[in-house]
């Protein structure tokens, strides 16, 4: 019997101990520690900080479905004085949203329900969304907003640009990203001069040109040989459109120095390097021309200069109004300058094609989805896209193919590594290697993390008006397309970002000045590399465009009368205001001295209409949202004086 008593006593005490564990654990929880140390920490301050009353705290937003207990430990969140306190007591930097209203996990992710450090911040086994690193916080803005300026999300916007640039949409579905121009490969056999170039290019495009957009597909030796044989066999152009024949005198003149000089002059007059670079110097819109003569045939280069849109459908290159002779001269100039001297042509022409290269070529072409970028008009080409990225940020970790990798923590780590070493996740991954810089990877990841389904209620969404595409009809439309105006210029934000917006150009610029400018374009700002090319445009076309500008690209708000003065002493006053009071000269050149930031104003009265000068000075940001010209807030009198002063700066 005594034994039973012993068992009874021992088990009941064991039970007692067991029961005591849980309340003890309750008492020694982390958050209690934090709150107590916060209270003792704030005692040491010279200023008064409200103490926290012990207990769990949470932000609850029913509409957003948010329960965030972060404020249980982050107690000093809204106490402005604590901006330099250590975590978790630091105050939140000033932002546009009230954290008591929106909670924390809306932007920061993490497990808001948790009151334990590890579970709340770090990736755990059952929580897919650990705390977003600070650098990716921008992507959270896009849960409610759909379009934010560089001021708010610079990294995300940079990522978007990169994704556009590298044409990711040819393999991955992504909304709102336009497809970039990539050459189609019909008739590539007539374009490429020698096979060795093709082989080198396929092996690693960035070896040929450092800014090549084509990634490295890491093809094997045999694959490269097969593919180059396959591509080289396409001698037929699409729609049996053949290249322009070179003029007869070309062959005799092509070594002639004067002829080459003419080509060089035309080449620099047309400002080819606004878009093309030469050994990395120049524009970034088009390919580097440094070894182009060893790559493309003379006939092809000549045709390309004469009418690029005919032989490369969809290309954004301007169709210059060169005469045949000028085009041929430029060809000769290119042939004499831009040659790869290292290439040995004799070696390669003797290699025999691999047997069965056509079928195998199609197979490789389809495997790597070459057709996503490069069109090839044979029916065997199939679309073979990669996974769509429209809602990549919603992906659960178990939905991701991790391959043999041992990273299983979070989506952003996956994306970073995928972008860096795309083939690391499994044997069958096809994604090519881009060799992004670290910052580029961060930017692209930030953009991808913003790609998600709408999870917030409708009334939380902030939607911007979409940019209306500008597509004029008829002759104007054709002219705009011929000269690819919208590659650089934009109209109401639709189009390129390099050159000024044209939407109000009729109210802004004088007709005569524009006419002159078409003839001899120059850069208004001396430091800008990408300047307007000379289009060799005909007078009729110029007049037609000018008529169009004056009737359509007009702002009625700029149509008002100004009481400009012509008295010399008042103009002198305006000059003083301009130079002394408002310091305009630190950015603008006038009378031969001044800064390079803004355009020179020496002949500004010739260039700009007075109402535009007046309105621009009044509020520059109204006419160009991201200009750094500071709004001066000057009074009406000063405004008129300065406008008068500037308006009289003209040679006629």
């Amino acid at each position, binding site marked *: 019997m005594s034994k039973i008593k012993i068992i009874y006593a021992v088990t009941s005490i064991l039970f007692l101990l067991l029961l005591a564990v849980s309340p003890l654990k309750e008492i020694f929880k982390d958050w209690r520690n934090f709150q107590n140390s916060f209270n003792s920490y704030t005692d040491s301050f010279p200023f008064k900080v409200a103490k926290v009353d012990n207990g769990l705290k949470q932000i609850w937003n029913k509409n957003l479905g948010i329960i965030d207990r972060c404020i249980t430990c982050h107690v000093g969140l809204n106490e402005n004085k604590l901006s330099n306190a250590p975590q978790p007591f630091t105050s939140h930097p000033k932002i546009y949203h009230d954290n008591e209203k929106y909670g924390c996990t809306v932007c920061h992710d993490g497990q808001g329900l948790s009151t334990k450090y590890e579970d709340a911040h770090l990736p755990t086994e059952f929580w897919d969304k650990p705390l977003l690193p600070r650098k990716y916080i921008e992507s959270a803005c896009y849960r409610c907003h759909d379009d934010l300026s560089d001021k708010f999300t610079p990294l995300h916007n*940079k990522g978007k640009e990169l994704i556009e640039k590298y044409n990711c949409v040819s393999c991955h579905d992504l909304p709102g990203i336009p497809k970039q121009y990539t050459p189609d490969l019909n008739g590539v056999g007539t374009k490429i001069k020698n096979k060795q170039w093709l082989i080198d290019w396929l092996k690693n495009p960035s070896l040929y040109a450092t800014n090549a957009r084509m990634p490295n597909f890491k093809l094997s030796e045999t694959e490269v040989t097969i593919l180059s044989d396959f591509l080289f066999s396409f001698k037929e152009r699409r729609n049996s459109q053949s290249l322009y024949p070179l003029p007869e005198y070309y062959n005799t003149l092509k070594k002639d120095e004067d002829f080459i000089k003419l080509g060089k002059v035309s080449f620099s007059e047309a400002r080819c390097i606004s878009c093309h670079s030469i050994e990395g110097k120049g524009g970034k819109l088009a390919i580097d021309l440094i070894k182009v003569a060893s790559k493309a045939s003379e006939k092809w280069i000549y045709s390309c200069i004469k009418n690029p849109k005919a032989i490369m459908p969809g290309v954004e290159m301007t169709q210059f109004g060169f005469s045949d002779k000028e085009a041929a001269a430029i060809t000769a100039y290119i042939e004499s300058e831009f040659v790869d001297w290292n290439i040995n042509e004799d070696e390669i022409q003797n290699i025999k094609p691999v047997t069965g290269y056509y079928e195998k070529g199609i197979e490789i072409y389809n495997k790597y989805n070459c057709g996503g970028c490069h069109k090839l008009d044979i029916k065997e080409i199939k679309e073979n896209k990669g996974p769509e990225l429209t809602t990549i940020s919603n992906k659960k970790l178990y939905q991701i193919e991790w391959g043999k990798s041992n990273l299983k923590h979070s989506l952003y780590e996956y994306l970073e590594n995928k972008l860096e070493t795309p083939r690391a996740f499994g044997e069958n991954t096809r994604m090519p290697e881009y060799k992004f810089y670290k910052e580029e990877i961060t930017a692209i990841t930030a953009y991808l993390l913003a790609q998600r389904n709408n999870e917030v209620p409708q009334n939380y969404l902030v939607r911007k008006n979409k940019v209306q595409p500008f597509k004029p009809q008829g002759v104007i439309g054709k002219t705009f397309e011929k000269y690819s105006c919208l590659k650089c210029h934009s109209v109401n934000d639709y189009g390129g970002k390099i050159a000024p917006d044209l939407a109000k150009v009729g109210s802004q610029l004088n007709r005569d000045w524009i006419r002159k400018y078409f003839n001899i374009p120059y850069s208004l700002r001396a430091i800008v590399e990408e300047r307007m090319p000379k289009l060799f445009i005909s007078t009729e076309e110029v007049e037609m465009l000018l008529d169009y500008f004056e009737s359509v690209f007009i702002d009625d708000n700029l149509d008002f009368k100004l009481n400009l003065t012509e008295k010399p002493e008042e103009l002198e006053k305006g000059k003083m205001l301009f130079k*002394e009071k408002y310091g305009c000269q630190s950015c603008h050149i006038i009378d031969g001295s001044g800064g390079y930031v803004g355009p020179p104003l020496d002949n500004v009265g010739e260039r700009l209409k007075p109402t535009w000068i007046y309105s621009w000075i009044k509020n520059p940001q109204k006419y160009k949202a991201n200009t750094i010209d*500071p709004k001066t807030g000057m009074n009406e009198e000063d405004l008129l004086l300065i406008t008068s002063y500037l308006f009289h700066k003209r040679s006629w």
Partner: protein
Amino acid sequence: MKKIKNIISIFGLGLIFFIGCNSKREKDPSTTLRVTFKAEVSDELNGNTIDIWKTLNYSERQGKYLFDKYCTVCHGIKGEGDGFNSYNLNPKPQNLQDSLYINKVSDVFLNQIISSGGSGVNRSSQMPYYKFLLDETEIENIISYIRKLNTIQE
């Protein structure tokens, strides 16, 4: 004694069973895939080498954005007063990395010179004023970044 042995053996068996059921999936410590970046080059996009996410806090980052946009044309990317436009200016723009200068001036003064321009504090009027373009918080952010300028560069 036999009973106790029985109990222990049953208990032990049960324990083994449970341990078998509950063995946690093995977790590798984060020996990630990350290979070192081949091109450990300077930040081509921003033109500087600092990791802004580690060295700057929120308001300093905001300040950096504004500084890069509005101030660098004259004051230079690193704030050394060597922006491309500085060569056209006389007197030259202030070197903001000059610790003697920057430690001497107060936040209030910096705020004044940014918001009211050079003429507002009896200095060269070549420094334009930004009180109509930037709001108070933005100017504060710029100041906090300027304060950080000489510490983040080697």
